[in-house]
């Protein structure tokens, strides 16, 4: 709680936190806040030629190619994207960190075996893997999250593995061992706290990549099924109108970037706050 209070003293962290709260709130309270049903196609939502409407007083952010209200779709889409971003990414981070730490701490043959498997996964085209997995399990939001996690843990495992090795070689680890500390204690009290910043960076970076990967999967028809909106599939549905109605791509794109940036800044600030040598410096 103390760390959190100090964190919010940083302007950029406070701002990022506000953005995240705003997005989360609009996702949770979408039924109350959204001006329209996200799936309702309005007759007056399209021009006579059948192209989407630019932002106007009736549809604040305009309409999409089927005449649906973009703002409502964005708010409902935030539910999907946050779900994927947090669940899939959280799962990827947990799995990647666990595998990386185990391999890096145990070392030896077991560690090498785990890392060779990770390399194998890395060499495998991620999209192909995602398509295969998605084809095996019938697509649902949860499966999509799982598939994304299965693809994304690999890089995290690599980074965490290398970092775990580098931290394990530090003299204060040997010092702890010379005191008689058990491996569990060394891992918990000395290795994990030093890994935290790396995990944090990857966790925040991962949010944008997972949201985008979900968009790609949606585009390929193996992600979130239409008409359920997600930020990714809003972009892909509307990309044909890019030249005539650029806001349909830019606005959800901006939402993704805003979310990713907010998490990145918050993660950065949190990392600095957790490091006693950086604390209080801006």
């Amino acid at each position, binding site marked *: 709680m103390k760390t959190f209070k100090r964190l919010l003293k940083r302007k950029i962290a406070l701002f990022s936190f506000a953005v995240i709260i705003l997005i989360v709130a609009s996702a949770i309270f979408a039924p109350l806040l959204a001006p329209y049903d996200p799936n309702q196609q309005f007759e007056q939502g399209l021009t006579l030629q059948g192209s989407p409407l630019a932002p106007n007083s009736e549809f604040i952010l305009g309409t999409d190619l089927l005449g649906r209200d973009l703002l409502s779709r964005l708010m409902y889409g935030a539910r999907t994207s946050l779900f994927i971003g947090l669940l899939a990414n959280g799962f990827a981070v947990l799995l990647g960190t666990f595998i990386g730490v185990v391999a890096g701490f145990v070392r030896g043959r077991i560690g090498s075996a785990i890392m060779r498997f990770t390399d194998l996964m890395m060499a495998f085209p991620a999209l192909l893997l995602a398509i295969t997995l998605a084809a095996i399990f019938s697509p649902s939001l949860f499966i999509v999250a799982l598939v994304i996690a299965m693809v994304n843990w690999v890089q995290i495992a690599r980074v965490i593995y290398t970092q775990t090795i580098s931290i394990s070689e530090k003299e204060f680890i040997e010092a*702890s061992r010379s005191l*008689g500390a058990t491996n569990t204690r060394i891992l918990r*009290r000395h290795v994990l706290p030093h890994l935290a910043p790396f995990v944090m960076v990857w966790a925040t970076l991962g949010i944008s990549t997972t949201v985008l990967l979900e968009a790609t999967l949606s585009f390929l028809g193996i992600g979130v099924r239409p008409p359920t909106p997600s930020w990714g599939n809003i972009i892909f549905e509307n990309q044909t109108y890019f030249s005539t109605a650029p806001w349909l791509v830019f606005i959800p794109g901006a939402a993704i970037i805003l979310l990713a940036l907010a998490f990145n800044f918050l993660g950065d600030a949190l990392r600095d706050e*957790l*490091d*006693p040598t950086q604390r209080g410096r801006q």
Partner: protein
Amino acid sequence: MSNQPLLSVSGLAKEFSIKGNKQKIKAVDGVSFSLNAGETLGVVGESGSGKSTLGRLVLRLLEPTAGEINFDGQKISDLNPKELRAARRQMQMIFQDPFASLDPRMTIEALIREPLDVHKIGTAAERAEMVKKIIGHVGLTEDALSRYPHEFSGGQRQRISIARAIITRPKLIVADEPVSALDVSIQSQILNLMLNLRKEMNLTYIFISHDLSVIQHIADKVAVMYLGKIVEFAPVDEIFSNPQHPYTKALISAVPQINPADRTNRVVLTGDIPSPASQPSGCHFHPRCPIAQKQCSETEPQLRTITTADHLVSCHLATGAVK
């Protein structure tokens, strides 16, 4: 029991294998010595002589390839990991670099309390009390406790390391170059602190250093190491007044003397210490020895007593004569 030495080591050896090379590096090669409670053993030698490895072997921070370690009635070399962890309460280590050996993310309080947490000594309140007591003992104030290592100078951090090492009231402390990273003015403060603590707590030190003047100040016995072996072992006065091994003589002649009258002829060694992977034949020191003879390159000398029973030297040519 009381007549037994606190620590006795025999035939201790450590080989490191190099990747892609069948040959092994003998970092420590058949070292034996014993140490009584309250004594300080100074271990000197150049970089690469195996002195740090020796310190880590004694504490089994490195697994010995061969040899036996007996400490306080326990055969350290035979303990299983759990017993070894418990035994560590009695034998602690002070590291060379106080910047690297303290976890930068822990407060000083957490760092000093760590040994108590590890060995589950006392209740939380008792632990806090002990930490407060020990911090004054090593010459720091209580307001240091809530701070982090990077806020302290090298000397202060080494005091923190010492506090960590003594809080479990150990019998043996291995200090691996504890003052080499410090300014000379700070060195003497830390050395005096260690001397005071030795008296108060009846500590036994293994004090590893490349600095003979430091060794002269603190040690009771001195082991001179060269290429993983002890080449001379004697009480500190004996080593300095009557060095027998040419390597010891060279080291001592390199110590700066304030009084010009005390300056002796400098024995200058040429070349570097050979790689332990390709050890010279015969006496390992012969390629650099100023008085080497034919037999030195052929047969390896063994440690033998000379002049007094507690003066050991491994040199064919040592006669026991004073300079």
